């Protein structure tokens, strides 16, 4: 008995690094070898959603914060990146203004808030720092005032809607509904070259692996324990002398940074960022993948995000009208009947088998 326990414990010790290694081999080695260019670029897009899902898993799965406005942070990261790339494209073409400003703009000068994005370093830093700063400012007031549950979800949605509407209204400086499109280069590399598209994929896959390592480190740290404690009983944590507001703030800000990074990587992969990716519907979309796969499980959230995005691409052609209903249904079923998502299905089944007398009870 004791030997099996220790061997199982030893096995468990190698589960995480082993899984990580397997994931790294699949993403960085196998996928680029077996997938044609087009499929690989689709996978690159799904992996961007997966990076958002890692943040959702942290904030919602572990912290209980239903983050329904991740589109805001995804968008801020995406726009920061796209603004730099548009400026770089314009400079390469010998123009002073990006193409859409020449068409729809009202003046011949670049708006002052575009100017700093000429610097690649500033833009890169901003893709993560800008969303984190916005999340920190918002979170600071919200968590301090003990805004929770549905109110927090509504607030984050309102922010997503507001940003999308604002971007649409500023056609001369943000490209309006069209967004920033037709991005040609990525830090000097021509995105029309399939070799460079593969490079972008590899960068995204590596970023996802890094973000997962970071999230796992947070999960198993003291902070991770505290975060779960705050989720399960905020009052008790407060009585123990911790400030739950700060714990939630950190989770929220880190999740925002991850969404920002995902948005920034989405731009070279897909070549477009627009308000359509920021509003309420895409923000809910970011959460559905994590919910379906299992929000508290890192791997579950990532696989869920990729699977839902893949299903959307494939199923929406065969059943265009039915897809939206199916997506809604998935969300309802996952949240209502399988809170742990598909990742919890195995555990659930195992528990049922070991306790046959309780099988008639509620599940």
């Amino acid at each position, binding site marked *: 008995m004791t030997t099996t326990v220790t061997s199982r414990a030893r096995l468990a010790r190698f589960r995480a*690094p082993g899984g990580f290694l397997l994931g*790294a081999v699949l993403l960085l080695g196998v996928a680029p070898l077996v997938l044609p260019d087009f499929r690989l670029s689709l996978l690159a897009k799904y992996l961007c959603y997966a990076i958002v899902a890692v943040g959702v898993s942290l904030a919602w799965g572990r912290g209980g914060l239903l983050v329904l406005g991740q589109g805001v942070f995804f968008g801020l990261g995406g726009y920061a990146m796209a603004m730099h790339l548009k400026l770089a494209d314009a400079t390469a073409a010998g123009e002073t203004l990006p193409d859409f400003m020449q068409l*729809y703009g009202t003046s011949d000068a670049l708006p002052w808030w575009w100017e700093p994005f000429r610097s690649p370093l500033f833009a890169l830093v901003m893709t993560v720092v800008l969303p984190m700063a916005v999340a920190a400012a918002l979170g600071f007031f919200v968590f301090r005032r003990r805004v929770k549950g549905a109110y927090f979800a509504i607030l984050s949605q309102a922010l997503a809607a507001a940003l999308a509407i604002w971007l649409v209204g500023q056609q001369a400086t943000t490209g309006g509904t*069209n967004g920033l499109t037709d991005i040609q280069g990525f830090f*000097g590399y021509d995105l029309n070259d399939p070799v460079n598209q593969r490079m972008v994929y590899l960068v995204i896959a590596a970023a996802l692996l*890094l973000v997962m390592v970071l999230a796992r480190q947070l999960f198993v740290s003291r902070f991770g324990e505290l975060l779960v404690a705050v989720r399960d009983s905020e009052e008790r944590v407060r009585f123990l002398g911790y400030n739950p507001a700060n714990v939630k703030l950190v989770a929220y800000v880190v999740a925002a940074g991850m969404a920002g990074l995902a948005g920034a990587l989405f731009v070279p992969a897909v070549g477009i960022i627009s308000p359509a990716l920021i509003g309420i519907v895409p923000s809910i979309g970011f959460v559905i993948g994590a919910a379906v796969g299992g929000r508290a499980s890192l791997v579950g959230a990532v696989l869920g995000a990729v699977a839902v995005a893949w299903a959307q691409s494939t199923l929406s052609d065969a059943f*265009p009208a039915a897809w939206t209903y199916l997506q809604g249904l998935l969300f309802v079923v996952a949240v209502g009947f399988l809170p742990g998502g598909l990742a919890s299905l195995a555990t659930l089944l195992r528990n049922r088998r070991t306790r046959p007398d309780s099988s008639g009870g509620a599940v």
Partner: protein
Amino acid sequence: MSGLSISRRGLLAGVSALGASAALSACGAKTGEDSSAGSAAKADTSGSTVKVGLLNSLSGTMAISEVTVHNALLLAVEEINAAGGVLGKKLKPVSQDGASDWPTFAEKAEGLIKDDKVVATFGCWTSASRKAVKPVFERYKSLLFYPVQYEGLEQSPYIFYTGATTNQQIVPALDYLKKQGLTRLYLVGSDYVFPRTANKIIKAYAEANGMKVVGEDYAPLGSTEFSTIVNKVKDSGADAVFNTLNGDSNVAFFKEYKSSGLTAKKMPVLSVSIAEEEVKSIGTQYLEGQLTAWNYYQTTPGSANSAFVKAYQAKYGKDRPTSDPMEAAYISVHLWKAMVEKAGSFDVAKVKAASDGITFDAPEGEVTVDGTTQHVHKTARIGKVGADGLIEEVWNSGKPIEPDPYLKGYSWASGLS
């Protein structure tokens, strides 16, 4: 404790992976270098059939409009196949759903070109979706036929525009209003690229032609709250409203307009995005007597149109109306066929070279392709909504107008772009 050490190891692996990918990156072409060798996609013309892509929103908010365009495209493909195909090959339509989402359009466009190896693609409705797919068609040097009136200011070498540009719709509409003595205009539009660009043109035109814009308001796409805007319109003393609202918003706007006591007699509304299909969904009682600007109506006379309407209704139902974007989609397939046959090849460069001067006896009257701008010569038509829900023409430009997407031929437009 053990968790921490695992993570550290994992971190190391992650960093080295990043390093490996960075090293790999050194192989690709830099911006400005020629990378065309690896990217131009080959269309498949080897079999007895060739595939054509149909890229429309079959789901989402735009589906109500885009499905009708999709239907018209299928009708044209069917007709061409019944007449023996193109260069002896039957067309196999491949439908992809853009889902009213612009990045999805780009993804599906790439799929059509690379996976299905289509010889040409037909579709898109909103300017945002066209802007999203434009780089994809340019990258793979594949052709898109875009069938909807739009805001101009574009000329992609890989897009043919078979709907009206601004000088074939908005400018003639302004000419018409001026001739009627309706010189004080109120501009109402949805908040996106087409209305904002159209209104910029309208303001420049008004200034040069002694007209006055007395108000300008935008509502978010899908907005249904119009009491404030209608009240402002009512108090503005305008002679007419120039309406660039899109989709559902029109329903709410015209209901509010009627209930506030405004009528087509008192202050007519000229709309550029309301066709026969939309009249049906908004309700004829709200629209009767109001004006529209297009290049085609279901009532446009001529044998080509009666054949088109008859064929469409035979396929899709007796009560289904035909509209301008549907007609522009229908002719786009026929124009492409004529170009391919003149070129004697499906090759994109040869098709483009053969495009200039291609004519087609279209339901809207004869149309001619302009090879330089890749737009189409079209006749402008102002219509009035009748009690039966159809639109009757009240004025037309007499002959097809040469496309001028950048309004280079209009001195008042010189400051626009």
